[in-house]
């Protein structure tokens, strides 16, 4: 089957449409210094917000105070359930229509909230699972030494939980990297285009799909090194375990 495709394919046509070097050359350096940089920046913003807020939500879900748990549960179920595109649309168009004003902190606030708030919901569940995977004896030992609940969490339980959740958290960063392509619907200027939008615009302009392929490959420039760094980190953690 695979062989058949290789034999029957129209190779000159394929390379002209999808691997057209003349076209590709025109994308540089903007695709790296604007589009790739923006993709990385949006991902980082969403991740930092998601991680911080996700940790708070995870602690709320594990709280002995029932209303905290309820609020966190509703939040998590809501944001895990709605499509990201819908949420971005709401932030970019719903909020201005309803209030007559844009969110303060343009153009980054809708990006941070748009990517970060749903990411927080996913990460909250990951972090919660990580905290629960730390053996109960760890918190007991910390409390027995006179640490408060908060001190035991901050110094003993959470650092160990994060070691446990490095692999699933990496997964979420990679998903977030690709989800960052959706922020294009918020409306972008030349300076705020990320990889996918950049590729699509270049496709229209140059009437050739090669930019999409190059943009796609650029995602790997983020995700592959990330995976390698994480693998190193894990190996180091396992030695200390």
């Amino acid at each position, binding site marked *: 089957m695979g062989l058949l495709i290789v034999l029957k394919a129209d190779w000159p046509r394929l390379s002209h449409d999808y691997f057209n070097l003349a076209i590709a050359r025109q994308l540089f350096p903007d695709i790296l210094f604007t589009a790739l940089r923006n993709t990385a920046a949006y991902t980082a913003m969403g991740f930092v917000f998601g991680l911080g807020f996700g940790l708070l939500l995870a602690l709320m879900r594990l709280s002995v105070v029932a209303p905290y748990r309820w609020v966190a549960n509703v939040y998590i179920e809501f944001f895990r359930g709605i499509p990201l595109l819908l949420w971005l649309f709401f932030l970019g168009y719903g909020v201005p229509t309803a209030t007559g004003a844009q969110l303060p902190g343009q153009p980054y606030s809708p990006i941070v909230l748009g990517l970060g708030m749903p990411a927080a919901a996913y990460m909250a569940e990951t972090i919660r699972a990580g905290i629960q995977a730390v053996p109960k*004896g760890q918190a007991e030992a910390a409390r027995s030494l006179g640490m408060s609940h908060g001190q035991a969490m901050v110094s003993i339980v959470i650092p160990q939980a994060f*070691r446990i959740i490095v692999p699933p958290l990496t997964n979420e960063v990679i998903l977030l990297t690709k989800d960052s392509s959706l922020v294009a619907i918020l409306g972008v200027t030349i300076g705020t285009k990320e990889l996918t939008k950049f590729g699509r615009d270049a496709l229209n302009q140059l009437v050739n799909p090669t930019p999409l392929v190059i943009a796609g490959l650029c995602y790997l420039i983020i995700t592959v090194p990330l995976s390698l760094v994480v693998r190193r980190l894990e190996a180091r953690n396992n030695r200390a375990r």
Partner: protein
Amino acid sequence: MKVVKVIPQTSSQVEVVSTASDAAIEVRSLHKSFGALEVLKGIEFHVDPGEVVCVIGPSGSGKSTLLRCINLLETPTSGKIWVSGQDVTDPDVDIDAVRRSIGMVFQQFNLFPHLSVLENLTIAQRRVLRRSRSEAEAVARANLERVGLADKMTAYPAQLSGGQAQRAAIARSLSMGPDLMLFDEPTSALDPELVGDVLEVMRGLAAEGMTMMVVTHEMSFAREVADRVVFMDDGIILEEGRPEAVLGAPQHPRTRDFLARVLNPGHRAPPLASDPTIA
């Protein structure tokens, strides 16, 4: 069920301390249930300052639960507990402050795996006692030397043998300067050849006058080091007294049966015809 009181050597060991403040640990009519399961069924228990008390008994008898109730890792269902005269069952008590003065050693060591041995010993000193780094490290170093681990300061817990890990855990507790130490089966998770080093450290502590409550299966340790041995079975204290009395001439048939099984594994004590609880 009848509780056999062994004839005491000194009067202070049998008379229930009337003012709670005299005792290092004072437990009165303690009950603890997990759901429908009643694990402690009315415990009267005390440890005097400087005393070493070993608690023995079959698994499931409630001895670890009793120990864990004393620093409130388990919340008593009812009853009262005083530690150094302070009512720890009072809802307003500052439990973190109480725990600061109680060292706890766990069966599974519970060292912090993400921290070096030195950091394991300093983190609570710094966070809880607010000691400076140099002061905390000096205390930690002294305690590691005391348990024979001065050369393991920079090691991580995963790099230690079980015996070394447990000694580091003891040193960690000692670094907080506790008034008394609780040991929850400290040698039960160790390979037999590593038990000796840990018991040696505990022997040294006892000799220095540390108040100790030790839940253990090490009968020779209990016989040699304990001032008093307490036998628990099925959530109550059945028998207590000098080690040579409880271990050498047990009065209660259940104690006899238990000791026979522990000291001669594979053999059972001859059942007493008069006792219906032994089948």
